[in-house]
């Protein structure tokens, strides 16, 4: 069964002792945990004034590592976001861009975000909203930010009805609320957890809307495939969650 990871990162995170890997090392590490392919985004973009340099460094780093597919970070809160997006599209195939609303103070229903959504639709690029990078209770004391709340995410989703969006880093209850009645929305499993995670999640969210995500290196990679190892869900649902759903979403 081929596994396609919707959420991995390369780069530095200043607030934890995380493994530092280059692109080949990340690919090997993922492979050792049974993960064949992954979307990878630049962690350095979270705190940079604009994400361009981190995106460019990532494109250079993954050259020659075919199992990693760049999902650049775009910051619509700064004026040059069209240049950021164009630069990424010039450097390689891009099927998904990632927006970090709490780290970049992006107003999800603001004019810049509306323009970004329209531009991505025009270019056939999907958008992922990174709802959280880490548990907000564990942010560094010098960092004051909160993930967007469910009502704000609801307003955003309802502002773009029918627009395919990946909500990344949501909690179990957020996943259930935000996918209800919105078949175009996908959620990843990085922060979704409960006793028998997959059975619980699939009781609340249609299987076609759920995608596998390890959130390497911020979360322990082994934990993501562990959710599947003894999961009592059908083989077809397992296949869909582990890779087919993400592939279909990116290609739609």
């Amino acid at each position, binding site marked *: 069964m081929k596994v396609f990871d919707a959420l991995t990162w390369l780069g530095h995170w200043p607030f934890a002792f995380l493994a530092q890997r280059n692109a080949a090392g990340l690919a090997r590490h993922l492979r050792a945990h049974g993960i064949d392919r992954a979307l990878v985004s630049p962690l350095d973009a979270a705190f940079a004034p604009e994400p361009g340099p981190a995106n460019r460094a990532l494109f250079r780093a993954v050259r020659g590592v075919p199992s990693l597919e760049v999902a650049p970070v775009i910051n619509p809160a700064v004026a040059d976001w069209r240049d950021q997006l164009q630069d990424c599209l010039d450097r390689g195939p891009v099927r998904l861009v990632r927006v970090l609303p709490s780290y970049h103070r992006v107003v999800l229903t603001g004019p810049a975000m509306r323009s970004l959504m329209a531009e991505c639709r025009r270019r056939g690029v999907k958008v992922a909203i990174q709802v959280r990078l880490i548990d907000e209770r564990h942010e560094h004391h010098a960092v004051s930010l909160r993930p967007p709340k469910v009502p704000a995410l609801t307003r955003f989703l309802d502002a773009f009805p029918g627009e395919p969006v990946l909500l990344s880093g949501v909690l179990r209850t957020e996943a259930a609320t935000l996918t209800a009645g919105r078949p175009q929305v996908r959620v990843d499993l990085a922060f979704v957890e409960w006793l028998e*995670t997959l059975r619980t999640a699939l009781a609340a969210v249609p299987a076609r809307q759920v995608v596998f995500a390890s959130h390497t290196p*911020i979360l322990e990679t082994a934990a993501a495939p562990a959710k599947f190892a003894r999961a009592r869900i059908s083989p077809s649902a397992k296949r869909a969650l582990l890779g087919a759903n993400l592939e279909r979403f990116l290609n739609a």
Partner: protein
Amino acid sequence: MTVLDAHTHPHFREHQAGREAADAFLREAQRHGIEHVVALGDVLAFGRNPDEDQLRSINDDTLWLVQRHPRRVTGFCYLNPTLGERAVWREVERCVAVPGMRGLKLEVANNARDACMRPVMQAAERHGLVVLQHAWSMTKIRQRSFHTDPEDAVLLARRFPNVRVIMAHLTGCGVRGVLAARDCDNLVVDTSGAAPEAGIVAYAVEKLGAERVLYGSDAPIRDFAVAIARITGAGLGRDAERRILRENARELLRLP
């Protein structure tokens, strides 16, 4: 490798599942190789400050489970220290009369450094009970008046050096919690709490030694498979994994 889970809540009233759900919970634990669990009760079923009747109701569930599965469940008696010395002693004496009740569980009714903890710790010392103290870094939560920081849990353990203390939620306590715990020999940490953040288990083992880290899941809030993967995915080696997943808790709880 068989596993002993030092931090579970088999009765969870959120889904109105009743006591029967605890049997399914144990079957799910067994599917993951977990042969024995510490049952702490549904500690927030009535909010953070339960009265005596509510406490008894929560502990009755635990007593029922311990008696039903004596070889598979160790019970901890849940206490609210703010109810006062007499209430604490009454509930401890009631619970420890049942074989298999081996510890006391403290949640968020008060901070572990508060004076009301004295009778709790005296009762633990008298009966040879382990104390599991909820702890979490309060840097962002800002509820320290009733919510215990790792340094508070360590202070509690230092004040009562003859009582063995489990500081819950390694991931919530973080690096500062590990460092606070370093020179406090009667305190161990359990690996429960939050998402499986990378690096923290290995850091705890490096600073405290594998013998002071216990596997705990916090299930059903967490998934047994994920909780075990925090340990097996941390690159610790078989001996350290065996200690954390089973031996440390077995020795601490004096299980066969």
